């Protein structure tokens, strides 16, 4: 499969704290890639670079061969990158439909067409019962779905999910997993940041593990769980096989 996204030697630090150091990996078209690592490993920081929210200090990010690093969030959205947020950022003065319409307006100028598109995406994401509900009244799981719907309404090629399954009940998390699979089936490439290994690993084709801002390892789920460096990073030296 050709690479949709290429990250080349990306480094970013915030006031002397190195969040990402010399990060390089590819994301293949159509795959679900996991981005794992303990707290403070630099996962969200990397997401912010890919989505254009921050500009890397060095290195570059290419989407289908075109450089997008430093282009800003609006250009990245136009290029086909959409994201959700670790701390949910719904538009709380709007209804669910209106929230998703903001996403649809990224590609569609006509209000009635944007509304039709948004309604379809809401249906697809399983929020149709809440379509006219105000966003501020949704449950945490519904808010996460709303963010996915809003992002999908921009018709992205690449969807960045930042801890979409964190803090959900097991049932809600399973429903979330099903949603991610169906998003992939639509042809959207997904990168997901997660803490919850047992939920993510069955879902992803490959995972990148970050630790202290660097790439610790890249591999299939089976390789990741057996990797001594990964075990050491998560559990400490005592649990790593010699």
């Amino acid at each position: 499969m050709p690479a949709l996204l290429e990250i080349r030697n990306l480094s970013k630090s915030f006031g002397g704290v190195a969040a990402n150091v010399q990060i390089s990996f590819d994301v293949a078209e159509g795959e679900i890639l996991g981005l794992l690592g303990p707290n403070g490993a630099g996962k969200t920081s990397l997401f912010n670079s890919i989505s254009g929210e921050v500009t890397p200090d060095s290195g570059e990010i290419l989407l289908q061969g075109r450089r997008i690093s430093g282009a800003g969030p609006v250009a990245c959205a136009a290029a086909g990158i959409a994201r959700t947020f670790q701390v949910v950022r719904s538009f709380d003065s709007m209804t669910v439909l209106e929230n998703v319409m903001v996403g649809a307006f990224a590609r569609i100028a006509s209000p009635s067409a944007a509304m039709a598109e948004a309604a379809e995406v809401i249906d697809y994401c399983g929020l149709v019962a809440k379509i006219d509900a105000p966003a501020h009244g949704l449950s945490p799981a519904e808010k996460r779905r709303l963010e996915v719907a809003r992002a999908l309404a921009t018709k992205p090629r690449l969807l960045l999910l930042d801890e979409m399954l964190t803090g959900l009940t097991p049932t809600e998390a399973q429903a979330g997993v099903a949603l991610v699979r169906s998003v992939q089936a639509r042809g959207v490439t997904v990168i997901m940041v997660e803490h919850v290994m047992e939920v993510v690993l069955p879902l992803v084709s490959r995972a990148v593990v970050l630790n202290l801002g660097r790439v610790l390892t890249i591999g299939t789920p089976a390789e990741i769980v057996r990797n001594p460096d990964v075990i050491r990073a998560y559990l400490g030296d005592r649990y790593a096989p010699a």
Partner: protein
Amino acid sequence: MANAITIRRRRELLIGAILLAVLAVLPLPLHDVYTRNLIIITLLFAGLAQAWNILGGYCGQISLGHSLYFGIGCYVSTLMFVNGHIPPPIGMIAGGLAAAAVALLVGWPCFRLSGHYYAIATVVIQEIAYLLALNWDWIGGASGVYIPFRGESWLNLQFRTDKLPWHYVVLAFVALTWLTAWTLEGSRIGFAWRAVKDDVIAARSLGVRIFPSKMAAAGVSGFLTGVGGAIFAQYVGYIDPDSILSGPLAILIALPAVLGGVGTLWGPLIGAAVLIPLKELSSSYLGSSGSGFDLMLYGLLIMAVALLRPQGLGSLLKRGADAGAA
């Protein structure tokens, strides 16, 4: 497709049309000049508050210096009429465009500020303009400009004997501002404004261009405020910096929207209907605004709304309507 948004917007248009019809016949049985004047001023401020609401309410950029755009509309239209004999209907549009241009000029540096910093910047810029106008003799300085009477006509926008034509002029202005807000609220830019107001980071991740969106809101808001200023100048026949460029006036433009509900279609109208008669009554019983009582009144009202009903008085009606529907 009939969904909640489409149904709501159709209903708003219907209520707007009914309200317009009621307001059109309202002054006919009221021959008293004082009452007619009160209605005219109330309607004018309802329109101005709606103009403010586009930037401050929908887009969430709180401007406390909107008297600047009001004053520019006044000065441009008046000076064109007095010195150039250009009819006020043309001067009104020129005044609106000049106000919009200045609103964009102010927005260019100031929209890089966020939250309170933007609001403070608008106050400072309005105060600078006020002091400049006080000392600029070519535009009348502190003593102001009298608008000469050049014959009763719609072209001159001068009516000596009757207040009724004025009622329809300001009613047209309110209808214009309301229809502008209604149209933009349902459009792509209206959604962008509300997204910017709710969460800038989420908005730009969805491709909303933040700075151009704010500039568009400032331009529309500035234009309508300038038009309102030009109407006011022609109505009272005399302008000076204290009556058209002052800080208290800037508050009075913003307050009806805050009182009635920011970022809503009806908030500015409801707020103006409550605030302006209250203000006029208090100044006729307690002497003109020189006593400062009106400022105390504004402060008390802001405190009361912020504490008791932060969504504004309009939300009380909405709750009633929801309860009625259930």
